[in-house]
């Protein structure tokens, strides 16, 4: 994408609502079409000049669809995760009302429209690829009198875990993500205002990746250890991704399972490790994420390769060797970094909001995590302090609501 020319930019400065709506409507068609239509509508008699990229704020991700957005959506820069506990009196009927309201809020806000009864409607007008994704904990499915998938339960206890209740579990998950933090904050408040009568906040986790436009879209994220994180992800839009992520079970068909773990990263301890030690702990180079047996990020690691004196090039304790599973044991990661106010004399309180989507958590995620729990050198610098599992219901059609396959 090229930077807009100055003249073109000034013509867009007084962006009108029509331009905005148009931008939203054609976002799926592509930037070139949007620009063409914009110019055709607004500048019929003048030289259109160089092509203008649409404003980032105008970009929308469709809300309605077979799957919920925010899973196969290219990860946005900012993400807020909220775990809610349902009030004791919330039954199946009340759940239906809650999810209808929240779905309607999400349907509007993600398209750049104020929610109904939105007290700050102006904050909704720049969606910036806002997505809202809902997840159901075991408690919610029970209230809905539905049948939960067998994996919808807290993960088995792992030896490395130091879980805190204030970052764990919950009945209802809201994942609110977008490329503009103000938009994300507004959407979060709007949804929580409407959830307040039905549920209370159990935990909130705020995460970030690179800001919008900093890197080429599709670049694998880096975490605060500097590691390239997520190289082996299946690619959205492929049959491989569909197999790994989407389930076809009952009311959850078209949905998936989410694992959200708060992984505290000890940056001070990591600082004491030299570069070769850092590379060895993961089995990849920090410079570009290439396996130690390759030169490019997406090179297949050669786990059999040995050094001149016979040691494995990718050490037995390396994260990628331990994580690598057989066949089905694959997941789709969509993590966010966190960096909070440090306590006491520390200078960092940082880590990763590990987020993974997989059709069957028990068969795909748990075996991998068991291996990492047994041996993974990265455990020296990381501690899981929060853990939650949610069933992510399918998307809904216009007129429906997220969860309607469970509640109607």
């Amino acid at each position, binding site marked *: 994408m090229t930077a807009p020319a100055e003249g073109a930019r000034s013509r867009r400065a007084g962006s009108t609502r029509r331009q905005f709506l148009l931008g939203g409507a054609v976002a799926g068609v592509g930037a070139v079409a949007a620009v063409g239509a914009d110019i055709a509508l607004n500048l019929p008699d003048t030289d259109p000049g160089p092509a203008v990229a649409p404003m980032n704020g105008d970009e929308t991700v469709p809300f309605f669809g077979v799957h919920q957005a925010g899973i196969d959506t290219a990860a946005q820069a900012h993400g807020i995760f909220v775990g809610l506990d349902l009030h004791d009196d919330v039954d199946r009927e009340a759940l*239906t*009302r809650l999810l209808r*309201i929240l779905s*309607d809020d999400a349907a509007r806000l993600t398209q750049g429209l104020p929610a*109904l*009864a939105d007290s700050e409607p102006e904050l909704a007008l720049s969606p910036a690829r806002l997505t809202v994704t809902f997840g159901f904990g075991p408690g919610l499915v029970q209230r809905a009198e539905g049948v939960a998938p067998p994996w919808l339960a807290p993960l088995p206890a792992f030896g490395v875990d130091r879980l805190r209740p204030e970052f764990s579990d919950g009945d209802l998950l809201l994942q609110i993500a977008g490329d503009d933090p103000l938009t994300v904050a507004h959407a979060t408040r709007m949804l929580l205002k409407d959830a307040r009568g039905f549920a209370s906040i159990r935990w909130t986790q705020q995460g970030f990746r690179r800001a919008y436009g900093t890197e080429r879209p599709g670049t694998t994220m880096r975490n605060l250890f500097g590691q390239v994180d997520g190289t082996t992800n299946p690619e959205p839009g492929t049959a491989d991704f569909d197999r790994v992520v989407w389930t076809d079970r009952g009311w959850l068909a078209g949905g998936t399972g989410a694992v959200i773990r708060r992984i505290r990263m000890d940056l001070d301890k990591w600082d004491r490790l030299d570069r070769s030690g850092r590379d060895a702990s993961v089995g990849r180079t920090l410079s570009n994420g290439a396996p130690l047996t390759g030169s490019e990020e997406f090179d297949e690691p050669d786990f059999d390769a040995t050094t001149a004196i016979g040691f494995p090039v990718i050490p037995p304790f390396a994260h990628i060797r331990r994580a690598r599973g057989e066949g089905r044991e694959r997941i789709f990661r969509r993590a966010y970094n966190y960096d909070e106010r440090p306590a006491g004399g520390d200078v960092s309180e940082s880590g990763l909001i590990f987020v993974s989507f997989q059709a069957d958590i028990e068969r795909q995620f748990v075996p991998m995590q068991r291996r990492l729990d047994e041996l993974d050198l990265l455990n020296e610098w990381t501690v899981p302090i929060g853990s939650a599992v949610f069933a992510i219901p399918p998307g809904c059609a216009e007129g429906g609501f997220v969860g309607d396959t469970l509640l109607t």
Partner: protein
Amino acid sequence: MNTTTRTLPRLAAVIAVSVLALTGCAPENAPVKTETVPAGEVVTIDDAWVKSADEGMSAAFGTLVNTGEDDVTVVSVASEASPMLELHETVENEAGEMVMREIEGGFVIPAGGKLALEPGANHIMMMDLTGPLAAGSDVTFTLTFADDSTYEFSAPVKDYSGANENYEGGEEHEGMDH
């Protein structure tokens, strides 16, 4: 979430026009309009919602849209959620306070225009709720226009902490939580 249906005296209007055409006795000064579309057929409401309440009063909001070529007037509104409803406006009283009161002559929606019903301004006032209005439930309203045509719509209930205007004639400084 809005579902809308219309109940229209369309057939009656068509018959009336036909009768006029047949007898040729249109009122002398009236422009010879080939048809007058009932208001209920050209008015819709966008983004309707109702403020939740456990009891007492509440209010409904939204944007009334008139796609017709004539101004239309909403003269009354009915709903099973409240036996008594009023069309309210919010105005400044002699003391300089903003107060709400029943509007005289109803809501006029200009031809090809809109009328916003919103907190702190015009709204449909529900004077006496028959039961709690719980967030996420729907309330059905029927608007009646000056030509006796009607328009029915349903609006979702939402929790909302604003819309606390004083009611004209109410006790001084006592906010009516509607």
